[in-house]
């Protein structure tokens, strides 16, 4: 892009100095190319941002290391800002108590759900203190709100009878 810009600069100077108006179409053409490059780049970066935003809603607040490896420093910064705005927005809902809108993506039918573990995840503690050991292929009956995050990450599987 710099090369295009420099060529245009020299031509503009020449056009003004010598009065050669016939250089103007070339200048316009190069300007069009510059605008086009700019458009492609901004669209690409904007699309990346949209995908990163979707990652927050799919994966949760913490991104796995490989995904973060592919993001540049400014994108990571943007992600933390977005996380913060989303968190402060969620805190302000529900009459000062906060409402987690990333939960319950589908309308809930029951409080407790049957889940099967797809891979070893270690120990998992629920609200009343009981600790559940998540081993592969073990089935449990757990409260919905605790499991939703793990189901979305693919650790657990929702079993419908």
């Amino acid at each position, binding site marked *: 892009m710099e090369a295009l810009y420099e060529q245009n600069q020299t031509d503009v100077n020449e056009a003004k100095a010598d009065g050669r108006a016939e250089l103007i179409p070339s200048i316009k053409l190069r300007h069009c190319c510059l605008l086009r490059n700019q458009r492609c780049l901004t669209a690409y970066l904007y*699309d990346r941002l949209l995908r990163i935003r979707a990652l927050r809603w799919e994966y949760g607040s913490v991104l796995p290391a490989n995904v973060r490896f592919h993001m540049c420093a400014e994108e990571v910064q943007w992600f933390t800002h977005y996380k913060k705005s989303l968190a402060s927005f969620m805190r302000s809902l529900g009459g000062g108590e906060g409402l987690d809108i990333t939960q319950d*993506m589908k309308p809930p039918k029951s409080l407790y759900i049957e889940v099967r573990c797809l891979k070893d995840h270690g120990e998992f503690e629920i609200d009343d203190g009981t600790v559940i050991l998540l081993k592969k292929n073990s089935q449990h009956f757990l409260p919905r709100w605790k499991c939703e995050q793990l189901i979305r990450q693919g650790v657990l599987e929702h079993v419908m009878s």
Partner: protein
Amino acid sequence: MAPKQQGGRVVTQQTRSLLNISVNILGIQLLSTSFGYKMDTLSYLPVQPGVGMEENFLSLDDILLSHERLPIRTECSFPRLGFLEKSSDTKDITEGTKMELPLWLSKGLYEKKRRVLSVELPKIYKEGWRTVFNADPNVVDLHKMGPYYYGLGSQMLHFDSPENPEIAQTLLQTFIGRFRRNMDSSQNAYNEDTSALVERLDCLEKALFTSGQSGLNSFQSWEKGQASQLTASSLVLNYRKRKINDLQP
């Protein structure tokens, strides 16, 4: 001699930068279709292509659309840009040359007073093909006629050709004629191979078809009672598939 050689070096840099951008575009296309994370979840909402004669600046579909080439006749000369025309080896592009320029360049350079360019209609928008479309729109393979028939047609209306009202009318009638069959097929092809139905569709129709299919699939899963089943996000599933593929030699 020295300035000319320097000009040559700068020229190759220019073409390289132009090529880089076009490679980027192809990269974007691949990103959204096959290789990268297939993001068809509800949280990823890409910028839609523009409706009618307007393009959306940030829409990737519109950028791909404006990459299509149009036959052009130059009305004035472009000094020092001879390298763009492959057939002749002149230093600048003379008046009255016939070239093929992409849509974005033609749109940018076009002026009402016709001082710079005159755009010739691509053959699918001319009289001959227009009668074909008016006769029976359902038979035509719009994917072969340039995958962006409707989009490019709407953009051609910018170039003030005397046949503009007829072009607009033909576009509309073709869409109306084909719509019934497309909607029918998208709403009734459940769990089957749709490639035979989709291959003759233009990009706009394909987008409509896929949204129809997703609506149908959601409805069917609701009927089966699967709508309340929590699922892992499609991102996670694709990510896991990729990891396994990476591990396997």
